[in-house]
């Protein structure tokens, strides 16, 4: 079988590219970490890949605002290509800084609109924090998430977060209603039992505890927590695992690889 090909887009200040590569590789994909300059030079290269990933980090130092400069760069230099890629229904993931980029570029929550309508702003605690949190997987249809990345997960999983600007804020109430109505909210921060959390389990003060969202079609996922940091049970603070070895983050990457391979 042909290997599923993943493009991890990196630039100055990207720093979760190696572990994101390892996560996809563990799921059987062939991965390339590509610098944005290379992609700008050869714009159609993007279509050689089955999955596109925007990894975590501090792109361009998060100067101005987190992910802002990179999102502008992509939009102005690669906008058409990325939009087409997204509309083709190919899986795209943005993790942490990658989520910030997707939101600020406007690829999330609505690809067709392709305009920034929400933001990720400073945590309520007003500082960068690295900790593990519980996430409730929203399941709206047939006891499964609408997002291709979030299938086969239990109701509550745990993943680490590490960010200073992770508070999700939509432009208006209507957008929030639409996200709910269209089943675009993929993960919410929660208590261990899946209930409303309190700080620090509610790490940033996001609207409705939103930790991750997808587009209506479900092929694009953006989330603040780091699934690539929990692909092995060993990475969990109390070494919790499934099948004796893996972490729940692996399932997220596996879902996309399997989706393409199917």
């Amino acid at each position: 079988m042909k290997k599923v090909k993943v493009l991890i887009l990196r630039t100055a200040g990207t720093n979760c590219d190696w572990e994101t590569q390892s996560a996809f590789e563990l799921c059987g994909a062939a991965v390339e970490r590509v610098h944005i300059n290379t992609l700008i030079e050869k714009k159609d290269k993007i279509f050689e890949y089955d999955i596109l990933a925007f990894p975590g980090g501090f792109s361009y130092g998060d100067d101005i605002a987190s992910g802002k400069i990179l999102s502008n760069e992509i939009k102005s230099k690669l906008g058409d290509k990325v939009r087409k890629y997204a509309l083709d229904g190919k899986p795209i993931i943005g993790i942490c800084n990658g989520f910030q980029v997707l939101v600020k570029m406007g690829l999330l929550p609505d690809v067709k609109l392709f305009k920034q309508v929400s933001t990720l702003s400073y945590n309520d605690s007003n500082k960068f924090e690295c900790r593990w949190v519980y996430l409730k997987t929203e399941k709206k249809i047939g006891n499964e998430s609408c997002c291709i990345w979030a299938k086969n997960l239990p109701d509550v999983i745990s993943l680490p977060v590490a960010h200073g600007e992770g508070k999700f804020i939509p432009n208006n109430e209507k957008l929030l209603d639409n996200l709910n109505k269209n089943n675009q909210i993929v993960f919410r921060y929660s208590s261990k039992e899946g209930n409303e959390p309190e700080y620090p389990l509610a790490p940033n003060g996001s609207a409705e505890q939103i930790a991750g969202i997808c587009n209506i079609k479900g092929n694009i996922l953006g989330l603040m927590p780091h699934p690539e940091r929990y692909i092995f049970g060993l990475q969990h603070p109390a070494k919790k695992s499934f099948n004796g070895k893996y972490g729940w983050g692996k399932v997220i990457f596996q879902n996309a690889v399997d989706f393409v391979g199917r």
Partner: protein
Amino acid sequence: MKYTADCKVIEVLNLSDEQLIELSKKNVLSLSLEEMKAVQSYFKKLKRNPSDVEIETIAQTWSEHCKHKTLTGIIEYTEEREGEKTKKTYNNLLKETIFKATVELNKKWCLSVFKDNAGIIEFDLENGVAFKVETHNHPSALEPYGGSATGIGGVIRDILGVGLGAKPLANTDVFCFGDFGIEASKIPEGVHHPKRIMKGVVSGVRDYGNRMGIPTVNGAICFDDGYTANPLVYCGTMGIIPKDKIYKEVKPGDLILVVGGKTGRDGIHGATFSSVELDKESDVSAVQIGNPIIEKKVLDTMIKARDLNLYRAVTDCGAGGLSSAVGELGSKTGAVVYLDKVPLKYDGLRPWEIWISEAQERMVFAVPPEHKEEIIEVFEKENVEAVCIGEFTNEGKLTLLYNGEVVTSVDMEFLHEGVPKPVKRAVYKMKEEKIQEPVKMNSSEISISLKALLADLNVCSREWIVRQYDHEVQGQTIIKPLQGNNIEISGPGDAAVIFPYTVVKDTKRGIVLSNGLNPQYGKINPYKMAASAIEEALRNAVAVGADIRRISLLDNFCWGNPNDPEILGSLVCAAKACYKISKAFDIPFISGKDSLHNEYSIDGKKYSIPSALLISAMGVIENVENTITMPLKNDGNKIFVLGLTRNELGGSVFAKIKNICSGIVPDVYPKESKNVMEKIYQAVSENLIESCHDCSEGGIAVAVSEMAFSAGKGVKIDIDAVKTSYVLKGKEEIREEMTPAEILFSESNGRFVVEVKSDNEEKFGKIFKGTAFSEIGCVSNDKEVIFESKKNKVKIQEDFKVLLNSWRSTINW
């Protein structure tokens, strides 16, 4: 030789001794009279005066910071113990103590020690791991944020600049601050408040480390009023390097390529300034300005260039800037540099400023001419500036040109070997340690003390700091700085373990990082401080499952003014302990660094810091699955103390909060403790230990409490079951029955608290047969932490949440 308008001739040939000293002081050269005279006589031979560039080059190269003159110089040492005086002359203290132990131990797995920017040990057949810890004290005192950020940035470049470049995997940070509760009116003039220093330093490490994508995984903080004017900031980085990239060699004809940041006027005189005492006039322009994203780009691209074999050598631009970097790489060959080709941040820099500026994020490469275009392309493709500024020669001379004019022409040999060896006097007089009056306390007094200890600055939670660091980026931090049984609660881990699976595919191995530091002991007994710091670093590593046969050490001496014989004497005494303990544990040092002159002057009076020896340990773990954490695991499991508890309260946190002035400082009993450490490794390998925590500040009581509250569990401990022993004073044995408080709070080294399943008790007992260990209690299903001595009718009982809150509430901003 003609000089341009931009370059001044400095008159030295006809100066008197006083004038030479005056010149050294005025230009922040930090050179002694003897050194100035050596400069004078060299230029007398050349029959000309030096240029300002030459004088500055010599000053940077000969600085304490770059040359470690004190530790490698001549020291006449006198030691006085119980009225007996012994004398010894050291021709090179480092070579005769710390380095000597490494040479004698001669470990095959030590791949590169004491010669490159970091020490390297073997990781597996293909890879080595490099570790370096640096200090950035003076800059952090003046400008805490910039000082600590460039501290971490600098030590990362040490790892990029070791061999042909290692990939950084983890950072460590250790700080010494003044007590942040101090009133502003009591702060000396020109000094920042400790809280401001602490917040600035933490933010600096956070912003630089997080942006570099390197997890900060291990550290410590020590609070003491002695660090109010001179905070200490230690930054460490560990990286991984293929074995075939460990050696570098410059060949004549290689081009000198400067890569990364541009050169500006920041950080002028950083190297020499670190040898000057601070006062209210100290110049902030000596502090560098950092930009982590530039350094991250350099890291990304240089690893690529390394794997394409495009260069023959690399080193970082640290203290002394280009002067040190090019000087170091070209010391055996010679070099020509065109200063006008160096990319500048802005116009107006004079040639000597370009040459010695410590502007950040720069690396210097030796590139074979045939690879010039290819390597520049690798860098430029990712927007990293790379410029050829000269070449290495075979003439043994350092030649600098500026706009076609020669501004420097000196012999490399004079630069690197010409510094006269200073002779310093050192005196150490051993202080008498007396056992304290028996500490008799009732149950509620002990309870109050336990909570006070948990809340003490030197014990309390560092969560406020640790969580601001992305300690899990790269996804490889499998033993974390904060550990809990579920994600809501946590306690302090003993050491961190990195599992480098993203770099070394299919590996099972890991790298353990830990540290030991206790300046309080040093105030009474520097020998025991050094011995304890080594033992503590080892103990911390062993507590997470490390094998002491695969551990290496780094030393970092932060001391006061070495010209004071007593201060230098305590340093010699500590260095002697390093040799002895390293040999006794069969554990080598692989690198180190010293920062002397940590003193501040107020109204002409000088205050030196409490001497601080930081020991950092790095080890290789055979199988990361055999690692353990400190929270208790299951109700009903048995709790043991391994090692003996002695009446050692000297320098302890308990002694401090109870104002007990006497007491014996904890000693190290290498044979006893090495034996315990080896057996723990065996027991961990056989999966016989559920959790393990080292006993350090606050003793058994604090260790057990931390294990309980990080698990959300209760414990029942029988104080009477703890095995105690006598202490040695000189050759005498002091036997004394210990009181419950003394047993609970003694800080004797060599002890661990471990949790064992009932089913495994027999096997566990067999392994530890012949060592001192005792079963002291069990994990209970209620939430109460109970310590009881029936013999003394003492019972302490606290809800784990109460103890957790005491521990958490002190630093919580």
